[in-house]
C-alpha cells in the first residue's frame, strides 16, 4: 500500500515536473526581447476610437447608409461598378487578381478594407489622411468608378431610400446641400460603414494571450511550426521593424525593391506622389471638411514632408488575414504567400534603390524556415466580422425593412 502511494506520488511529481518542463520549454522558445516583441503584436482588437474628423463615425444611421452605398453601382459612371465589385465581401473585401479594371486599367492592387479604423494613411501611396477622404478617391477616379460629384448628389437626392437614410444620418436633405457637401457626407457614411469591418481573434492572438498569462495549456495549442516561424518573424527576421503592433503594420511606408514601374512603363511615384496628392487635396484634414474644429487630428498631415527616399515607397500592409488575400505587393506582382517569403529570403540588395530601406537583408531561410514562417503567417487569419452599432430607432425608410 505504501509502495503504491509512493508510486502515485512519484507519478504525480513526475507529471508535474513534465508540465513544468513543457511550460519552460514553450516559454523558453523565445528570448525576453522576442517575448516583448510578440506581446506588442496585440491585444486584438485595439480599442475602437471614433474618427473625430467624421461626424458619421459610429452613427448607426450613417453606417446603414454607408453599407447601402458600398454596394450601390449608382456611384459609378454608367451604373456599372460598386465599391463591393473590387472590395468583395467573400474575398476578404479585396479581389483575387493582380490588377483589376474599372473604367480603365488600374495600376495598383486592390487592398482589403478591414481594420482600417486604426490607420492613419490610406492608399498604397498614402494619398488620403482619413478613411472618408480615401472613399472619395475611387468614386471620382477616371480609371475606377469615374463618377462625378453631381452624379453622387443626384443618386442620393433622387433615390427615396437613400435620401431618407441621408436625412436620418445627417439631419439634412441632400437637395438642400451643395454638390461638394453631399459628396463628402456620402464618403463619410461610406467610411462609417468600413470602420465596422474588423477581423476576429486569430490563432496567433490566442497564443499571445496565453503567453502573456503564462497559460501553458494555451501556449501548447499553438502549432510548433508556427511557433518556430514566429521566432523568425519576431527575432532574426526583424520583420517587426515594419510589421509592428496589433495591426502588423507600423502604418508608414517602405521601399522593399518591388518595381515602381507600371505595366505600360510609367512610373508609380509611390509615397512621394501620395504626399503631393495629399497636400493638394481639398479633402485633407487641414481643410474645411474636417469635423474637428481644432484640427487636432491633423498633426501628421501638417508635418509630413516629401523626401527623396519617398520614391518607390509604398504602404506597409497589415498582415492580418494575409494568407487569405493574394496576390501581394502594391502591384499584385507576387501570386502566393510562399513566393513572398521566397522574395524576402533571397532579396536582391542590388535591386534596392540607394535610398531604400537600409535594414533590409535577405532572410536566407532554408526550406524548413520558409514553411515555418508560412505556418506562422497562416495563423493570422480570422473571419471578418461586423461591429454592430446598437440602435433603438426603428427604420422607416422606403425600401428598407423596419428593424
Amino acid at each position, binding site marked *: 500500500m505504501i509502495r503504491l502511494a509512493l508510486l502515485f506520488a512519484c507519478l504525480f511529481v513526475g507529471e508535474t515536473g513534465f508540465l513544468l518542463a513543457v511550460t519552460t520549454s514553450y516559454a523558453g522558445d523565445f528570448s525576453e526581447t522576442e517575448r*516583448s516583441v510578440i506581446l506588442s503584436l496585440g491585444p486584438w482588437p485595439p480599442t475602437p476610437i471614433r474618427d473625430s474628423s467624421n461626424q458619421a463615425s459610429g452613427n448607426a444611421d450613417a453606417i446603414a447608409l454607408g453599407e447601402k452605398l458600398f454596394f450601390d453601382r449608382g456611384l459609378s459612371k454608367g451604373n456599372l461598378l460598386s465599391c463591393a465589385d473590387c472590395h468583395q465581401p467573400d474575398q476578404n473585401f479585396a479581389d483575387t487578381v493582380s490588377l483589376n479594371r474599372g473604367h480603365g486599367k488600374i495600376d495598383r492592387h486592390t487592398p482589403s478594407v478591414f481594420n482600417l479604423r486604426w490607420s492613419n494613411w490610406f492608399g498604397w501611396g498614402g494619398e488620403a489622411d482619413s478613411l472618408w477622404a480615401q472613399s472619395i478617391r475611387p468614386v471620382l477616379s477616371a480609371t475606377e468608378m469615374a463618377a462625378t460629384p453631381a452624379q453622387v448628389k443626384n443618386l442620393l437626392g433622387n433615390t427615396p431610400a437613400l435620401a431618407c437614410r441621408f436625412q436620418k444620418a445627417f439631419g439634412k436633405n441632400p437637395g438642400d446641400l451643395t454638390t461638394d457637401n453631399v459628396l463628402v457626407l456620402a464618403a463619410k457614411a461610406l467610411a462609417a460603414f468600413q470602420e465596422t469591418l474588423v477581423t476576429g481573434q486569430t490563432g496567433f492572438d490566442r497564443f499571445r494571450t496565453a503567453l502573456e498569462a503564462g497559460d501553458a495549456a494555451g501556449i501548447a495549442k499553438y502549432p510548433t511550426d508556427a511557433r518556430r516561424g514566429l521566432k523568425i518573424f519576431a527575432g532574426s527576421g526583424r520583420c*517587426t*521593424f515594419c510589421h509592428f*503592433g496589433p495591426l502588423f503594420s507600423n502604418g508608414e511606408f517602405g521601399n522593399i525593391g518591388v518595381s515602381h514601374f507600371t505595366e505600360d512603363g510609367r512610373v508609380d511615384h509611390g509615397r512621394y506622389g501620395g504626399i503631393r496628392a495629399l497636400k493638394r487635396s481639398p479633402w485633407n484634414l487641414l481643410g474645411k471638411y474636417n469635423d474637428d474644429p481644432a484640427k487636432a487630428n491633423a498633426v*501628421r498631415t501638417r508635418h509630413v514632408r516629401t523626401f527623396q527616399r519617398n520614391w518607390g515607397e509604398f504602404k506597409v500592409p497589415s498582415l492580418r488575414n494575409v494568407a487569405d488575400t493574394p496576390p501581394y505587393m502594391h502591384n499584385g506582382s507576387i501570386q502566393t504567400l510562399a513566393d513572398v517569403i521566397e522574395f524576402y529570403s533571397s532579396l536582391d540588395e542590388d535591386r534596392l534603390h540607394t535610398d531604400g530601406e537600409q*535594414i533590409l537583408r535577405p532572410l536566407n531561410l532554408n526550406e524548413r524556415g520558409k514553411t515555418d514562417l508560412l505556418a506562422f503567417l497562416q495563423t493570422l487569419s480570422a473571419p471578418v466580422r461586423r461591429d454592430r452599432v446598437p440602435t433603438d430607432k426603428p427604420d422607416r425608410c422606403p425600401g428598407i425593412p423596419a428593424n
Partner: protein
Amino acid sequence: MNWQSLLRLTCGLVITLAFLTQAASACPTASSTAVYKTTGKSYALAMETNPTPIQVGKVFSARLHICDHQARPFTGRLKAGATMPLHKHGMNYRPSVSVLGDGKFRLDGYVFHMPGMWQFSFDLKASDGTERLLIEHTLGP
C-alpha cells in the same frame, strides 16, 4: 570707503544677485528633472516629451529648455529632427518649432515609426555659430 562707494557696491551686488537669480530661475537646465538632457560646448538642453514614454508610431511633442553655460537662455534659431543612425533614415515628418521665450521651445509633429535606436538632433544657430546637440533614445517594442 565713503557712503557713496558703499551704496554703489551694494547696488551693484543687488543687481548682480538679481540678474543671477533671474537667469538661474529662467533656465534651470542643470537642475531639471527632465528625462532627456545633453550638454555641448556652449549649451545645455533639457527635454520632456508628451506623451511619455514615446510609443512606436504615435505622434508626440517635446518641450525644450536650452541655456548656455552661464545659465542664459538660448535666443537663437532652433532646427530639430531625428534619425535612426543604424537604419540610415529619419522620420517621415518634420517637427515644427514654437518659441516660448526664456530659452523654452515646443516641438510638434514627431513620430518614431520603428522600434530601435533613435537620435534626436537639435541645431542651435546663434550669431557666433551653430552647435548641434544630440540625444539618443532606444524605443522598445
